[in-house]
Structure formats: structure tokens, C-alpha cells
């Protein structure tokens, strides 16, 4: 059983409850997951990290001393997903017109619990509320030289959730299986043991120059070989001990119509 925080659709404040496989205990009542509509549980800024999985780093390593990179990276390589991208469990993800596929970005999200500035490595876990799942959807891009805003910052390109699992109920965040299913078939498998900067070092290096606030989320990275998804595909990201984040791909026009509905 894990302690979770969730945002239910139509209710402003976060609810606390307990997750036990397919059941959530909420206000002393046991509810099946299918009875609940989960909204995005995140209130702050969402920062992503790239090149933090060994396989992803190694794939680029031979180019790192050449143009345009010229040298291997020193600091964590970060980006921001703006709020227009935020979405939640069971929501559609738009496939922009003229595009065939979107890239699925399966990420463990570290949810910050209190203001974190210049945090020491051995105190990092004091600043963490828990973990969630983030699908950092993107149009495919092949260079990390410039921030790929047009690829990553589109409306609905960042499903988050379904909930936040309290960090005390995650046995070891550096040993979690991550799987991406498309239409029920496993298309990507990795594990957070393959992170280059583990969570303490990542949070230390980031808060060295920028403050993270309660409710902000820092993605630890997206593993290599990101699967591509097409219109009509059902996407499911499963992270061990956290849960399963489910979404599906629709045409952009249908996405905006569904928002109005």
C-alpha cells in the first residue's frame, strides 16, 4: 500500500489517499481506479533533463567533441515544459497536422516538497515530496544544440500523473523498471539504475543555480530509443511502484474539439 496525493477532476485541492493495486482508499472509502477521474497533480514549473540515461548519452558521445557541441556537457542539460502542454490521465495527445508520428518520452518526475536552493547532496531527499509519471511528448528531433521548443511545447504534449506517490513508499528510486506500451505491446524498457546523475546529484547540481519550489517537478531524464506513436495509438507508461499513465493519440483538430466538449 502506498500513500498518494491526487487531483480529481472538478476538485480544486489535492486529496490524500492510499493506493493498493487497483484500489484507492480515499476518505476511508475503497474505490476502484475506474471510478476516479484523475487530473494533473502538478502545480509548479516542470523541468526536464536530457542525456541523463547512459544509453542516450553514449549514442551521442562520439559527436560531443565535434560541431556544434565542441565539448561534452558539464552541467545538467535542462528544459522547461510550459503549462499549455500539461495534461493528465486518459487525455488525448494531439498529432499536429502534417505530422505522422510523435515521440513518447517516458520520465520519472521528482516532485519537490519544499523550497530547494543550493541543497547538499546528502540532504536532497528532505526536499522531495514524491514521484509521478510524465510523458514528455515531442515531435522527433535529432539535435540537442538548440532548445526544441516547436517540437516539445505544443498544447497537450505533457500528460502528468496519475498521482504522486509519497517518497517513503518508493523503495529505491534508482531501481525502477520503466516500460512503454503502445496498443498493449511493450515498445521500450529501461530502468532508473541507468541514470548518469542520480537524484541527489541532479537536484544538487540544479539547485546550485536555480531554486526549485514546492510543486515543481524535475524529470530525471528520458531513456534512449524513444518509441514513436501514430494517430489512434493507445500509450501507456508504466513505472514500477508509481503506476501507469495512459493516453491516446488523436488528430489535432479532434484534440481541440475535445477540449471544447
Amino acid at each position: 500500500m502506498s500513500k498518494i496525493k491526487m487531483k480529481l477532476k472538478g476538485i480544486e485541492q489535492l486529496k490524500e489517499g492510499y493506493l493498493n493495486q487497483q484500489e484507492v482508499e480515499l476518505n476511508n472509502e475503497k474505490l476502484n481506479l475506474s471510478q476516479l477521474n484523475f487530473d494533473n497533480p502538478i502545480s509548479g514549473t516542470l523541468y526536464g533533463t536530457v542525456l541523463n540515461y547512459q544509453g542516450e548519452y553514449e549514442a551521442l558521445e562520439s559527436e560531443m567533441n565535434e560541431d556544434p557541441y565542441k565539448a561534452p556537457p558539464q552541467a545538467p542539460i535542462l528544459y522547461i515544459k510550459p503549462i499549455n502542454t500539461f495534461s493528465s490521465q486518459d487525455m488525448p495527445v494531439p498529432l499536429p497536422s502534417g505530422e505522422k508520428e510523435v515521440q513518447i518520452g517516458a520520465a520519472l518526475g521528482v516532485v519537490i516538497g519544499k523550497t530547494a536552493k543550493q541543497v547538499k547532496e546528502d540532504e536532497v531527499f528532505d526536499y522531495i515530496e514524491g514521484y509521478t509519471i510524465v510523458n514528455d511528448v515531442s515531435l522527433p528531433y535529432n539535435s540537442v544544440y538548440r532548445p526544441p521548443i516547436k517540437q516539445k511545447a505544443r498544447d497537450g504534449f505533457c500528460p502528468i500523473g496519475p498521482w504522486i506517490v509519497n517518497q517513503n513508499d518508493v523503495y529505491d528510486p534508482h531501481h525502477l523498471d520503466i516500460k512503454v506500451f503502445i496498443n498493449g505491446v511493450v515498445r521500450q524498457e529501461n530502468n532508473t539504475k541507468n541514470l548518469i546523475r542520480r537524484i541527489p546529484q541532479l537536484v544538487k547540481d540544479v539547485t546550485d543555480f536555480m531554486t526549485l519550489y514546492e510543486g515543481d517537478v524535475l524529470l530525471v531524464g528520458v531513456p534512449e530509443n524513444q518509441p514513436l506513436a501514430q494517430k489512434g495509438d493507445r500509450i501507456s507508461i508504466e513505472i514500477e511502484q508509481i503506476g501507469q499513465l495512459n493516453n491516446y493519440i488523436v488528430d489535432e483538430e479532434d484534440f481541440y474539439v475535445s477540449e471544447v466538449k
Partner: protein
Amino acid sequence: MKQGRVVYEAAIHDVTEVNGKVQLQDGRLLDEHEVEWLPPIEPKTVFTLGLNYADHAKELSFTSPLPEPLVFFKGKNTIIGHRGTTVRPHDVEFMHYECELAVVIGKSAKSVKKEDALEYVRGYTIANDYAIRDYLENYFRPNLRVKNRDDCTPVGPWLVDAEDVEDPMNLTLRTYINGEITQEGSTGDMILGVAELIEYLSGFMTLNPGDMILTGTPKGSVDTKVGDEVITEIKGIGSLHNTIVGE
């Protein structure tokens, strides 16, 4: 109208400018030194343009035009108000200001044509988008360690209503260090102007009320030292003061 947000007597006030004074909602008039300045809005998404003035791009040895506009985002940690302080780390060689026209969005904008784009602007303010070039790396450049540091983006003092700015594409920008002019340019030299930027960004994402677009800086970025008073100024918009401090 010029609107601002200040702290006065331990409360946050929405204020307006009257004859160079700060007016509280109850009519009291204060000198600008009597209040603590907050950014004039609390922006949601902050967009920043890099290399959006041809002369500045040349100054940084970029000779050919970019294949796509260079856009990046900022978090709320970096935004501070008028008369604030910004830290210069002790071990850096080159920390420069960037005087920029900041556009505040007034209503939800998606797939807006440039002909209609200025209708979506609520107003304008000034941003000083400091950069520490020592930390520049060629990964998602300009990387957040250069551009999203705590307190490195002063904004303000006033948000000036769009209707009071006759032509946002013909404004003189100037920066002074300790009273000496070090940067001068015109918003007319932007590669993508305000309307084109709104068309470009809203072409692939929704802009929301309160979003802010920092439109880039002209040439003339020079190093700043601890103790320097840096004033970034845009004609008709105001004058934004900041002081560089040590760690």
C-alpha cells in the same frame, strides 16, 4: 495607464503611475523609493528570444540567419522586480545585461495572424535578461545555467497598456552602467517583430493571458561588475534599475 505591483507597509499593492509618483488604490501618492518593487505581473509562461536583433547576432559571430527563431523558456525563480539585486558569481569573467522589450499577452491566442496579433497584447514592460557567458554550453543553448539563474531577470517597473504605446516597433532601448550609456538600439531592428513573434508562437501552441515574451536585445552587451548600477530603459515604457552584488 502604467500599472505596477509593490510592497508598502507589509502589504502587496496594485499601483498606478501618476506624474512620476506611485499611486495606491486609496489615492495615496508615494515616491518610488518608498516602496519595494515586485514584477508588474506574475507571468505564467515566459518566452525569451535569442539572436533577434541582426546587429547583436553579428556581435556574437552568428553570420547566417537561423533556420528557426531561437526561443527558450524561463522559470519564476529568475524573475525579480525594479531596484532589485542580481548576484555575480565570484568565479566568472563575463556577465552581461540584455535590455529587452517584454510583451505581455492579454487574451488566449492560438493560430493568430500577424495582422491581428497586436490585439492580443495587453501591454509592454522592460526586462533585463542577464547572461553569464562563462556557463554557456552547446546543449539546448542558451542553457538554463546561463539564462535561468535565480534573480537574473529583472522585470518592470511598469506594465504600460498597449493602447498607450503608439508603435512598439519604433522604441529606443538604452542601457547605462553607473550613468554611462553602453547600449543603444531600436525595436525597429528586431528580426521578428512583436506581431510576427505572436504569429510564430501561436502557430504551434496556445499563448495564455499573462504570458510574457522577451523579444531579444540589440548589440552592445558589456561586462558588469559587483557594485554596478545597471539601468535598462525603453522610451515610453520606463527605466528599470538593478544592482550587481557579490555572492
